[in-house]
């Protein structure tokens, strides 16, 4: 049974596989799920104290979802990230006081966001521990961030500033390249992300409108960032998909057939990998309005948030 079936997602399809070097993205396409506020109606307002992020839902009729580990950055203030996802009631603001500061030696509170991203994969995994996640301590991720940056030689004395990574010119270029290499497809609501053919994340948004807004933060800020770091540390084997051999003398139709088959084949090869992902535990975390948040843990020590509206799953963000 695939992970989607285990969690009750129905009506999903798979789009054409997209690949850039070690990273592969399999688009998940499907209809809009539930009745969720559009991302344009969700606004990050401020940090009211270190460790407290405030969001506003301007939609008076629908609840809004803040994506898991959403990160906001701004000059002259301490950048912050959510410890998980968040639900905000219709037409209301909500403070999340278990958020993480991601800039160790920077003071100042944010007023709106200049840049948004989603935390890198490995740091997201650290926040799967409910003890860390629920703790109201703004500096709870500093040790992990310092470790995450270690060995990258960013010339900043090992301080726990996630910004040092994103703002380094060579890294910034590489991340933009990731964003450029992948494109949303029609009706896309999510994606399976793989490094060297191994699934490392599954993201499903409530609608293609949500995916339109958040895909870059995920592909660049979360998965792209992790891959760039692993490459810099030499911890991932350089690879690319091996393209099919075209026998000499093949006519144009034969060439087309071989290439078409290859494109279909990689899709078929990747899908069974999703069968291997098993949900180990489910912990209910929050109920707000019509929505509930459940923390999932997988047997591979991954996990993430599932948001349901009534019985219908509307949002999933799993790091594997």
């Amino acid at each position, binding site marked *: 049974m695939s992970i989607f079936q285990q969690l009750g997602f129905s009506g999903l399809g798979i789009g054409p596989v997209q690949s850039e070097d070690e990273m592969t993205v399999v688009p998940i396409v499907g209809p809009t799920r539930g009745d969720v506020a559009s991302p344009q109606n969700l606004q990050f307002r401020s940090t009211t104290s270190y460790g407290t992020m405030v969001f506003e839902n301007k939609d008076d009729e629908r609840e809004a979802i803040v994506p898991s580990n959403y990160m906001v950055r701004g000059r002259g203030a301490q950048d912050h990230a959510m410890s998980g996802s968040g639900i905000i009631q219709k037409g209301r603001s909500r403070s999340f006081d278990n958020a993480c500061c991601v800039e160790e030696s920077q003071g100042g509170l944010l007023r709106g966001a200049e840049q948004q991203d989603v935390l890198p994969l490995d740091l997201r995994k650290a926040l799967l521990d409910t003890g860390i996640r629920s703790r109201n301590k703004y500096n709870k991720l500093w040790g992990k961030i310092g470790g995450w940056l270690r060995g990258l030689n960013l010339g900043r004395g090992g301080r726990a500033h996630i910004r040092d990574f994103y703002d380094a010119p060579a890294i910034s270029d590489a991340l933009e390249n990731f964003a450029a290499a992948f494109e949303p497809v029609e009706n896309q609501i999510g994606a399976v992300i793989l490094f060297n053919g191994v699934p490392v994340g599954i993201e499903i948004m409530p609608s293609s409108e949500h995916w339109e807004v958040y895909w870059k933060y995920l592909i660049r800020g979360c998965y792209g960032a992790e891959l760039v770091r692993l490459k810099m540390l030499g911890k991932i084997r350089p690879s690319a998909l091996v393209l099919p051999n075209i026998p000499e003398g093949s006519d*144009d139709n034969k060439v087309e057939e071989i290439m078409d088959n290859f494109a279909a084949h990689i899709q078929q090869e990747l899908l069974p990998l999703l069968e291997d992902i098993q949900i180990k535990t489910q912990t209910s975390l929050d109920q707000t309005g019509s929505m509930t948040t459940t923390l999932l843990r997988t047997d591979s020590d991954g996990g993430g948030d599932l948001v349901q509206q009534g019985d219908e799953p509307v949002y999933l963000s799993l790091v594997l």
Partner: protein
Amino acid sequence: MARTKALKIDSGILQYVPKGQFYEESDAQFTAVMNMWQQLFKHDRTLFSLITLLNGTGFSKGAMNHMLLANSQSGTGTDIVPDALPQEFEANIVRYNLQKLSEERFARAIKNLLMLAGGEGFIKVNNARTRKLILEFIFSRDNKNLDSLAVNFKTKLRKLVRHALGKQTVHKILNEDEMLFTKWIGRYNSLALPVVEHLFDKQPKLRAKATGYFPLIRQYWYMKKAATEGNVENFKKYMKGMPQRTVIGFRNSFKVPIELSEIYEKSKMSDRESLQSEAAVKRSGAKTTEINYKKHDVYDLWKSFYFKLLSGDSENMDKIAEAIDYKSSKAEKLSLGECVVVIDASRSMAGSDERKLHPFLTSLSVLSILDDVKEVIYVGGKTIETPIGIKVVVPMNHTDLWKGLIRAVKTKVPNIIVLSDGYENAVKGMFKHTYDYFKNNGREFNLIHMNPVFSAEAKSGTARMLTPDVKPLPLSDYRHIETELIFNRILENKEMVKALLVNKYQKLLGGA
């Protein structure tokens, strides 16, 4: 696109526009292009100045001219004047470029001058050459033209004149220092004192004979008086024929109670403004004036067509489509031989928020000037039916360009032109893989890759390639294909092309 090992430049240096792409901030691109400008400038200043005679974007030419003006011409050892050119050829080129640009895009020409005053992030440059250029450009024109210019670009001209002359000289001229006025401004136009007064917010003597030469300026001040006094009747009387931006500015600043629709109907707009503000005029409820679409550039027409389509406005769509056909049939065609065109219509070709749809619209515009096109193949995208019954493609989805290549090869047409940003993701490398197979197995075709997206990330140059064998032609504007083709040869045989450009100079500006 050819390059030399010594010079890592390409024709992108003439085609840069400071706007981000789908995936890249404009800062990164600017750094890459600035690097190329500096390289060529240091390498051969003469060639640097001569190539600005080729077609290019206003911004690129402004930046290159800024570099020429910021660096003294003598004593560098690299500014040798070719035999066939006059000593002042460089100044002539700068003046020519500015003049030519002002005929096509006046606002851009003013912006280029403002670069000298620190505009768009450039360092301020003020020397005898820049002073002359600025003052001559503004004041050396007939009264009617100067009158219109002073009303349309009041703030910008004020900044330029203050930059050129300094606050003290301006102060003295405004206090009727005739000698200084004649020295700096009167030499170009002896009647221009009311213009200077107007620019610096000193009301000219409205009943004086001298002001009579500048009726728009006079009208401007009467309109301003009406606005400050809240005299709506007079305001309406004087706003007729005034630039729309100016009227709206007064209306908003002085809270004049007058409907926007009335302003749209009675004030004046350029042809280009009328096309760009068509939707706003419609929203205001004003009676729309008939737009002669056939007078517009094909790129602007495509842009208008797609923006109407995406905003669900079908009015005049048929007329725009007709005008596109008309302009395409009348366009000066570029012949690259019998060809098949593959257009990348994937999502990234939709461009950035700053320049929505630009790469895709550029591709469509290129198509309109190419001759002998046997087939057009779209890769990616979504075909939608327009309210006027024709089907068009909008950029969407992934990029499997290899499919387009196979279809193109199947046509057996000798030239395959691919219009793409060079990002291939479904999956990466399949285009090159297919191309290599065809080339190694006796298929004879010539692949030309035109790239309408600049990329600082490109391995070299300004445009990302699909396969190492085929250097992309960077193309930010469909009208610059010729520039690219000439540029190819510049770097292969610099001296030959220098001679070619000297000839071009002589043709455009006269000999020594």
